[in-house]
């Protein structure tokens, strides 16, 4: 279908609005992180930085615990992501392919995990973790992140598994592949976009998780970025430059993640398999 000129203009205008809406805050944060403090708080805001400095980054990395927060956040997010995928994939496959009593009911039941506000489960989880000696460990955050990401990930992966033609699986069965091999060697590569989606979802959810990180972690050295950041915002004053530099650095791992797994977001992965 060919677009007329007014249609094209409207389309591009709409796109421009969306780009501005999403991009502007990013631009504001990143450009602000290299401005001198007086420009950041100047009465007339500047869209294009009039000054340039790396002093905020210097201060952030040298005189705060930000590097430790960054490492903690990376560890927590990476382990949460890896374990979520490792658990969601076989679970989704079992729900998808294996026949066992109560399968349908159990499958619906796992979504009940999202029925409660997180605050409600916070206290019992705290009590549970206290008993197991998990308070103030990064492992406790990994467990919580997995628990919250898993139900959605299972649902998502199951629908991706359902999109793989049945014939491919049956061909593998006839070829003598056991279920574990079918899942890892045949199905997993074919649902790479689904695995990538789950990875991004889990990573970002873990990266930005605040509530549990603020309650379960006690010592400063084990804090993650969202909680550690809150400490930068002082009671009486806010170092805006520091905050903006921290926010800029905090987005970098996510950007890298997208660049890394983005290539799996390709359609037509099963092209050539059937038909």
């Amino acid at each position: 279908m060919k677009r007329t000129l007014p249609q094209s203009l409207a389309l591009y205008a709409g796109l421009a609005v969306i780009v501005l809406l999403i991009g502007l805050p990013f631009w504001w944060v990143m450009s602000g992180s290299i401005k001198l403090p007086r420009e950041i708080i100047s009465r007339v805001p500047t869209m294009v930085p009039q000054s340039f400095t790396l002093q905020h980054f210097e201060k952030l990395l040298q005189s705060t615990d930000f590097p430790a927060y960054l490492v903690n956040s990376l560890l927590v997010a990476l382990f949460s992501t890896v374990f979520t995928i490792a658990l969601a994939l076989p679970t989704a496959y079992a729900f998808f392919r294996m026949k066992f009593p109560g399968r349908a009911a159990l499958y619906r039941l796992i979504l009940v995990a999202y029925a409660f506000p997180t605050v409600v489960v916070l206290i019992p989880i705290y009590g549970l973790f206290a008993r197991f000696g998990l308070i103030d460990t990064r492992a406790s955050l990994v467990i919580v992140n997995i628990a919250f990401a898993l139900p959605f990930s299972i649902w998502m992966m199951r629908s991706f598994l359902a999109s793989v033609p049945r014939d491919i699986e049956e061909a593998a069965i006839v070829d003598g592949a056991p279920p574990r091999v079918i899942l890892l060697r045949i199905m997993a590569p074919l649902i790479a976009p689904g695995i990538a989606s789950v990875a991004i979802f889990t990573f970002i959810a873990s990266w930005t998780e605040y509530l549990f990180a603020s309650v379960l972690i006690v010592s400063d050295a084990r804090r993650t970025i969202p909680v550690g950041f809150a400490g930068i915002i002082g009671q009486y004053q806010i170092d805006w430059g520091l905050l903006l530099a921290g926010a800029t650095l905090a987005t970098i791992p996510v950007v890298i993640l997208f660049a890394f797994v983005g290539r799996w977001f390709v359609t037509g992965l099963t092209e050539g398999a059937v038909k």
Partner: protein
Amino acid sequence: MAGLSLQGVKKRFGHTEVITGVDLSIADGEFVVFVGPSGCGKSTLLRMIAGLETVSDGRIEIGGRDVTNADPAKRGIAMVFQTYALYPHMSVAANMGFPLEMAGLPQPEIDAKVAEAAKILHLEPFLKRKPRELSGGQRQRVAIGRAIVRKPDVFLFDEPLSNLDAELRVQMRIEIARLHQQLKSTMIYVTHDQVEAMTLASRIVVLKAGRIEQVGAPLDLYENPDNMFVAGFIGSPRMNFVPVTVVSQGDGFAVVAAAEVGLREVSVAVRGEPPVVGTRGVLGVRPEHFASGGDACFEGTVSVVERLGGLTYVHASLSDKSALTVESRDPRGFDLGTTRRFAFDPRRAFLFDGTGQRL
């Protein structure tokens, strides 16, 4: 290599019986084609032999071994799917080597067997490619290659050519026939295309509604069908059926007539006891058994003429509303709307009773 036998095999989905008791024995090296209309259960039966569907009742043996409940991989079968079912993320060589890898063969041996199969199927230049970089015919050859590397006892083909265009289908049909001659393995082939069935099979199994209608060599089914279903299914274009009445009978023949369609008394051979006079029946005449001259003829009005060059198909309607298809080598003399006589060879006509069984 091995033969195969099905004994009282049934398949139920819930309360619906889709295979209603099949007994069949297939000799070593035979090329058997399951043919029938959609939903007749031919694919289900094949999948039961493959072990992809459970058997509700009965017994399946391959090479004298009971495999009714065996794993697909332990049955000594290989299957070629309608949709090829290649592993899209693996190269052609990896696709073909996969079953051998699963069998635990060492890599050099796998490579050697894949190379051998690739040679048979002319796939050598494509071994490093991914399935998406191949044409439909090449993909189907890879699927066949994946089957032959294992040297299975029985090859199963589930409508393997129905995704290919007409020209390629003819080509692949010849290749499969050549492959059978070369490998001499037992092959079971499912199709709804009776031309594929006729050209490939050493024996055809005609199925309808989960039941075997007739089993026999292609020409046996063509020349000696047991019932109207088989008579209509085998042969293209399909056989003409015209209602008739038995007017007299003798030893091994019946004289039938249908005055309203211009058919005067004509004698037709019957296989068993001749029918009693006055019986209503159906006369079956193949389009290719019409020829000018002779007394046996129908009177019909020409409605459509298809001139294919060498052959011409004339579609006519009879006065009792039944349709007639007539094959002719002479394209001339069939004017639309004209009523004319279509003479046929009564020695090649079949008589069926009211239930469709051959008399």
